[in-house]
């Protein structure tokens, strides 16, 4: 019963492509890929109804369609606008778009606390990338940034409402992945906030995915909280037999410790397959996982600074030429350094490390 899908021609930044009818401009641009793709903070292809909120994907439509060639008067959100036959779209070639995006970034950052040095999302934060690519160096905002009362979102998820840009992705995850939504957006305008209704903890088995869909550091993993910076951990593709999800994940390691488990993400930073809370929060040792190899990390990401991918270690020849004798160690770094103490396994600590964690390790010495 396969029907012939009608394709339409669309030109984005002078690149023409045939796409099925009903595709949004953003998805058409993603099919072309590269610099032509508008950034998206709220649109998520795996979540129905997402998009249209952040306005970062604004594009200029310089020709509506073959039938009606008039340009659209205003910039349109490319995630919510469908393509028409013969449509011509300008993204990076339009100065109006670059200028508008500049303004959008400034608006998104108005109330953002810019606490990147503390935030666990730093290094894989979409708002950081967006600000770096499209933003200005300084803000013109002079007033106090909004603050919120603290909300507890259960034992695994940390909510920093000040960092939230209200993209609603997490609300859609709770809506579409779980049976009963217990969190949503309260209040309006500047006061709107993500919150569980009357401090209910989210105990659904798939609720951990809100961490992955959050484009900023508003929802972060409590089990990874402050343990390491993402660019110092080694991402590896791994899988396990899981009764409720696919079990295909990325584990973030320091040495043998598994500091964090996340879902695998595609080139647009979107989750490939949702994973369950058990995989995400409870399987924190290397023996739980079958490791497939280093995850591909874009060369432009700070995470690639470790050069784990395609790394060829030189062959150790010392013992071969010295009749099997290994080299004499001049100094064992652990005898002097307190950092990365082998007696402290950060992955076994629930929540963030504190002064008590390290006091214990000093006593042992």
């Amino acid at each position, binding site marked *: 019963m396969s029907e012939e899908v009608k394709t339409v021609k669309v030109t984005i930044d002078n690149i023409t492509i045939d796409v099925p009818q009903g595709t949004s401009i953003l998805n058409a641009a993603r099919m072309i890929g590269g610099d032509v793709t508008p950034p998206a903070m709220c649109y998520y292809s795996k979540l129905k109804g997402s998009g249209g909120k952040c306005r970062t994907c604004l594009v200029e439509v310089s020709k509506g369609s073959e039938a009606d060639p008039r340009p659209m008067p205003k910039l349109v959100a490319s995630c919510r606008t469908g393509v028409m036959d013969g449509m011509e779209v300008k993204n990076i070639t339009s100065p109006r778009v670059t200028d508008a995006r500049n303004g959008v970034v400034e608006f998104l950052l108005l109330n953002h606390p810019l606490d990147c*040095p503390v935030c666990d999302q*730093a290094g894989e934060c979409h708002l950081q990338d967006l600000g770096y690519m499209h933003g200005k160096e300084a803000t013109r905002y002079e007033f106090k940034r909004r603050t919120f009362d603290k909300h507890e979102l259960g034992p695994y998820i940390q909510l920093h409402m000040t960092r939230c840009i209200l993209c609603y992705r997490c609300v859609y995850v709770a809506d579409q992945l779980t049976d009963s939504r217990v969190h949503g957006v309260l209040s309006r305008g500047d006061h709107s906030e993500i919150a569980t209704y009357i401090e209910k903890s989210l105990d659904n088995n798939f609720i951990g995915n809100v961490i992955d869909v959050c484009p900023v550091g508003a929802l972060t993993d409590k089990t990874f909280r*402050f343990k390491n*910076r993402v660019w*110092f951990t080694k991402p590896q593709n791994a899988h396990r037999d899981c009764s409720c999800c696919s079990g295909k994940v990325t584990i973030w390691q320091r040495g043998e410790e598994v500091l964090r488990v996340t879902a695998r993400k595609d080139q647009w930073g979107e989750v490939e397959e949702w994973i369950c809370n058990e995989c995400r929060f409870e399987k924190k040792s290397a023996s739980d996982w079958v490791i497939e190899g280093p995850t591909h990390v874009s060369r432009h990401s*700070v995470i690639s600074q470790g050069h784990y991918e395609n790394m060829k270690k030189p062959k150790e020849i010392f013992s071969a030429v010295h009749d099997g004798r290994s080299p004499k160690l001049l100094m064992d770094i652990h005898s002097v350094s307190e*950092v990365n103490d082998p007696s402290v396994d950060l992955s076994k600590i629930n929540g963030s490390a504190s*002064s008590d964690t390290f006091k214990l390790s000093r006593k042992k010495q």
Partner: protein
Amino acid sequence: MGLLTNRAKVLEQKPLTFMESLYLPAILKGMAITFSHMFKKKPTISYPEEQRPFSPVFRGLHVLNRDEYGRENCTACGLCAVACPAEAITMEAAERKESEKHLYREEKYAAKYEINMLRCIFCGLCEEACPKDAIYMSETFAPSNFTRKGFIYSKDELLIPNPVDEKEKYEIAKGKREVQLKNK
């Protein structure tokens, strides 16, 4: 065998002239040069009694900064470590407790912070990368040591004296640079 490079020169070896074979004039000439240096200005100083002023851009031993209330500035963001070309800096972060608010400026802090001075090349990139005003390079150099262990500097060595609790130490550590600049 031919020459290896075209820059090699063939040494001429002529027999010595009569004056050269006496040696004495050449010796006297040398002694005169040596003697004349006694009346010239000395290019050296007698360290450590005398010390040369450091250049204002001198990059010496690192210090970890505190704010005026004595709280540590460092939040263990890891930017110095990722900027470090010699990979000399390592750290581990911890979360501040409610009772430790007077010790650390932000909710995350560096529980451990180490710089391996054997690896450090004193390039100053850590200082440039720091978003929190936390690491600076001072006008001292790393003292020599007999063991490798002595070159791994932890927070005990790197932190500046607390301006609230240890006022005297803090004043000494601050040095005289600020006074000099003001007088100018």
